[in-house]
């Protein structure tokens, strides 16, 4: 299925019109998602319906019997919960926010590009069943833009599932709520009254609501600018009315948001390194308003063709299993739950595929490779040359870069990122390095190892740059794996595939792959590798071919991930078989920090320090049953199967012969670690 890559800049319209105010006060008669009855359901109607639903009423009766708390009192509790959850819809607020947003966008952005034709198509098909917008989530900008875009194209502003962290921000919670956000508690708790109410609220919105619903399938904002493994909680709740035949179908619209520059880039860099995330406060928000004085280039939004749940599940789903018992006495079945992962991964894949690549993604890729693994710095001409080259390669792999004139785009994006990249006096490109002083840090809040100010100063620019490489890595991961394997020796397809499966399983959380042992992805990657002259066949064996430049670039780019994984395996090997998560992370980071500092031995990329990758590695090892995860007193701990671990590590070490970190690997026990901190 080919993707139509035509984008209109709708900010241009705002630029040209004489009065943004006129536009923002336009007649509002939006397309709704799912027509209901004769009158449109109001926010309060939904809350009342939830309270009066047999599900909640039954539950309250039960609790009341058990606890002797009168039912009315419980009803009040539910009402409070619903007020905490429920969205509101205040057109006035929407218009005012829209106006402010327009002003901001006009000052800090050059354009907001949207594939309008598809948007119009989706809009025209709306009306007959719930529509779920499922955007990538890599910035707070996502849902603001989603609502803004909806307003632009006269689509009803979606009801958005938002985390409670917003709720804490004074004023912001209310503002967001008034524009359609509803709130979900994040923390694990087993408050069954809360969750039953929340689930019923979603059930209500999907089956009896008429707004599009927006939620993030990754559950949280990705700090790495890469897709995260999907979460199934909300997806299950959203699909329940379909499983129960309460709606004819559900349309999921995957949406890709890409930003020339991400608002939260430095925050993310810190977070990735393990500096605890500051609680979102309004003053923090206003601080980020200051950033808005800067230039953020373009935003690209691609709405993909909807995925119909009905079509997707096809005959695998038998909804008649729900016919014999009252619906409110039933839950989503285990069989139904097994249908979710393929759908979730399909949505994620589609998001990744449609995401627009920015020129800065390419610049970062080239620049990172240069700074990390090459001896001579790049001039602008050399950069442009390589960017053009890699753009063509990406195109052949299905990626789309938005630019009309690549030289100009490079200039533009370097201006946008002048806080990160600069031209030195010799006209060569370097990273801006601002000294970082962490001041007083509460060590208890650290997720991993306390990194020194020097390490931070050195690492943050690299990590920030990596954030812009990450979104295009999924185009290359399969090829990389093949190259890394063939680098050890030529081999036949079966051997190659076996090793490929091993690495791909290990990386399946870092680079979202579903069914990592699937041959079709392997075959596709092989075809690409061969046509890019990275690999060829000689006497029935595959071997590395002549395109060394591309080969190096790919292998270099991914090396940091290998290092992280390797370091984790090494540390796990040396730790006792039951260990808490923080000890693992701290030890791995410590090992890597030492290796990074010792630059003469080997270049270790600072991104290898990032906790995201380390956590993905641990989770993959859990998937592979190397680790067993337990959670006690809000602390993650692991039990290590040392035999399996050794297998994995030995297997993995075959690809790490260049790497010297094993020599320096030693464990700091917990007490020692804390003393040092």
């Amino acid at each position, binding site marked *: 299925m080919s993707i139509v890559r035509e984008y209109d800049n709708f900010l241009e319209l705002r630029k040209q019109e004489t009065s943004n105010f006129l536009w923002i006060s336009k007649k509002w008669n939006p397309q709704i998602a799912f027509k*209901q*009855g*004769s009158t449109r359901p109001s926010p309060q109607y939904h809350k009342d319906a939830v309270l009066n639903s047999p599900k909640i009423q039954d539950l309250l009766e039960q609790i009341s019997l058990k606890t002797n708390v009168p039912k009315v009192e419980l009803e009040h509790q539910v009402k409070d919960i619903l007020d905490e959850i429920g969205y509101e819809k205040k057109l006035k607020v929407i218009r005012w926010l829209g106006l402010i947003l327009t002003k901001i966008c006009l000052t800090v952005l050059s354009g907001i590009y949207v594939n309008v034709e598809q948007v119009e198509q989706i809009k025209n098909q709306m009306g*007959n*069943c719930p529509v779920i917008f499922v955007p990538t989530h890599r910035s707070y900008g996502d849902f603001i833009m989603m609502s803004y875009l909806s307003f632009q194209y006269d689509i009803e502003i979606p009801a958005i599932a938002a985390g409670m962290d917003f709720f804490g921000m004074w004023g912001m919670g209310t503002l967001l709520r008034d524009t359609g956000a509803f709130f979900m508690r994040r923390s694990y708790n087993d408050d069954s009254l809360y969750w039953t109410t929340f689930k019923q609220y979603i059930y209500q919105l999907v*089956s009896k609501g008429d707004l599009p619903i927006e939620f993030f399938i990754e559950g949280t904002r990705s700090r790495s600018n890469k897709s995260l493994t999907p979460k199934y909680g909300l997806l299950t709740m959203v699909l329940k009315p379909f499983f129960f*035949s*309460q*709606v*004819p*179908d559900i349309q999921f619209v995957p949406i890709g948001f890409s930003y020339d520059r991400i608002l939260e880039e430095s925050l993310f860099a810190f977070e990735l390194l393990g500096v605890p995330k500051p609680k979102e406060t309004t003053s923090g928000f206003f601080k980020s308003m200051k950033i808005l004085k800067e230039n953020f280039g373009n935003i690209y939004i691609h709405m993909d063709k909807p995925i119909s749940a009905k079509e997707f599940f096809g005959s695998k789903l*038998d*909804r*008649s299993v*729900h*016919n014999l018992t*009252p*619906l409110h006495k039933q839950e989503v079945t285990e069989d139904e739950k097994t249908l979710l992962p393929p759908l979730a991964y399909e949505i994620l894949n589609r998001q990744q595929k449609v995401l627009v690549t920015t020129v800065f993604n390419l610049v970062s890729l080239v620049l990172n490779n240069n700074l990390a693994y090459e001896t001579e710095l790049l001039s602008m001409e050399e950069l442009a040359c390589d960017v053009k080259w890699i753009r063509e390669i990406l195109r052949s792999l299905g990626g789309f870069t938005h630019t009309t004139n690549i030289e100009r785009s490079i200039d533009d994006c370097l201006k946008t990122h002048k806080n990160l990249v600069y031209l030195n006096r010799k006209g060569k490109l370097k990273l801006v390095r601002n000294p970082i002083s962490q001041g007083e840090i509460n060590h208890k809040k650290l997720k991993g190892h306390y990194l020194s100010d020097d390490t931070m100063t050195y690492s943050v620019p690299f990590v920030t740059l990596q954030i812009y490489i990450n979104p295009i890595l999924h185009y290359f991961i399969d090829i990389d794996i093949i190259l890394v394997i063939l680098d050890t020796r030529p081999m036949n397809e079966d051997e190659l595939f076996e090793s490929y499966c091993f690495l791909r399983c290990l990386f399946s959380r870092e680079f979202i792959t579903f069914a990592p042992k699937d041959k079709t992805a392997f075959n596709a990657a092989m075809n690409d590798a061969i046509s890019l002259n990275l690999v060829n066949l000689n006497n029935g064996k595959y071997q590395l071919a002549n395109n060394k430049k591309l080969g190096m670039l790919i292998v270099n780019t991914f090396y940091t991930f290998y290092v992280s994984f390797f370091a984790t395996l090494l540390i796990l090997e040396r730790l006792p078989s039951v260990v808490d998560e923080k000890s693992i992370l701290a030890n791995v980071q410590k090992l890597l920090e030492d290796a990074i500092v010792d630059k003469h031995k080997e270049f270790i990329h600072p991104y290898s320090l990032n906790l995201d990758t380390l956590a993905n590695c641990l989770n993959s090892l859990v998937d592979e049953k190397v680790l067993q995860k337990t959670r006690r007193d809000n602390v993650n701990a692991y039990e290590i199967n040392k035999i399996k671990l050794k297998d994995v590590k030995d297997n993995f070490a075959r690809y790490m012969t260049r790497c010297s970190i094993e020599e320096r690997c030693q464990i700091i026990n917990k007490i020692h670690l804390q003393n040092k901190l």
Partner: protein
Amino acid sequence: MGENSQKNQLNGPIIVNSVVPKNRQELIKWNGWGYNDSKFVIKGGSEVYFSGRRYPIGEQRLPHIYGWVKDVFDVDLSTAVPKKFNDLPDEKAYPNLNVTPEILEKISHFNISFSTKVIDRVIRAHGQTLHEIYTLQNSVFPRIPDVVIWPTCHEDVVKIVNFCHENNIVIIPYGGGTAVSGAPECPPDEQRTIVSLDTSQMNRILWLDKENLVGCFESGIVGQDLERELKVLGFTTGHEPDSYEFSSLGGWIATRASGMKKNVYGNIEDLLVHVKMVTPRGTLEKSCQAPRLSCGPDFNHLVLGSEGSLGVITEVVLKIRPLPKCQKYGSIVFPSFEKGVEFMREVAKRRWQPASIRLMDNDQFKFALILKPESSYFAHALDAIKKFYVTTIKGFDPNRMCVMTLLFEADEKQVETNEKNLYDLCKTFGGFPAGETNGERGYMLTFVIAYIRDLGLQFEVVAESFETSCPWDRAVTLVRNVKHVVADECRLLGITRFLINCRVTQTYDAGCVIYFYLAFNHRNVGDPVRLHGRLETRAREEIVSSGGSVSHHHGVGKLRRKWYGSTVSEAGVGLYMAAKRQLDPKNIFATDNLVTQAKL
């Protein structure tokens, strides 16, 4: 014929002169629905009329149809050339006669009327599904009965069944031929001789028992004859399926039919007191006529819904009721379908149902307006709606509002209270009474609507109906889901002009009945029967997925066999087959209904 025939009867059976002659085609369309003289006709280019004076809209201009047909189906009645259909089939059309002279010779000795003429055989080879009518009009059936036989009493049937059993000849009982499940059709691969057993000449009223309020009828009596005869005596059965002009008592039982006024009189299973069914293993019947028995499983329920596959129903004892003192129509408009359903649910909860209560969805409501015979000045049907909207029901969205039709049957006092209750209650649901005429028109329309398919068929528009029953809480979503699936599937099939609407036609304590109409223009899209088959299958799958049943009253026949097993469970299928093997070991009632022969 047709007028009351009781004058010359004193004691003993009442011989009923049926409206429907033995040569059915003399009165009834051989390749369409209903009376020959009643049909939609186009006069002077684009004016549509309904011919004949049998129905209230007869011989009146129907000015809105033209524009509506253009809008909905993109058919211009003024220029479109009606399709040419097959002529009445003659002997050449079906050259094969699969019966030996010896058998015919033996049959002739029974002194029971029979025929091997093609026209007689073709007419009894089918029911009323789209597939069957389309075949009649455009091609030939792969298999038709070889002999038609007209028994006149129970004993005749016993003789025929025994003879067929001995000679391994297939019998397919035939009542009024109104089935809409493919039930009367011959299995195409049947190698044995097939006899169509036409019950129409077995239609006497054997006796009436006014003390116990029951009557004994022969199974071939058709609804309108039965009611006409009873009316003279001051009674009614109250069983009134929309097909009651032509469908037979035996057919009702064999398909578990349901009448419009079941709220007062009950469905066929409620009316049935005693039934005789002739099987190869003897006649299944009971020893008494008690109102209810606790004596093991009730075999009435084996006969009900047997769809001709277990034996021939011959004599039936039904409940009868004195004619109601008062009959009155009514209607209520609601702002939306959902509100209407809520109201209906409440009425059912309170058990306030009048004889009939039906709710048309918005599309059907509009359609009803289209059929308004008006010498009006409105150029366009929509104007009529608008007018109706502006003048009568301000504040309602003409694209959302719905009409409920009501029929009351009781004594005046009861009707009055019932009316008042309903009209008061409806206000809580945003509805208000919209008069008697609207109600009456609604019921008249259900009879006329059956005729409109024949008009469409001439212009490449095919139509069909299907129904289901479901729990109350699933009704609205079921309707929505089915409409969605049909629209989706039409899009996939390339059908751009289609209509799918529905009405809620019956209420029960625990659920309701939903009746859908589906029609589409198949010009340049492909074989309409195949397309429709696909649409109806998808719709039924969606119904079943949405909590609905395989059928409320149309039955399974051959059309819905696919869902029989999953509906009654494997054990259920086994039970049915055991009964089948016991009563009909040679499978001479090889109707192929419910379960395919292959499995028997």
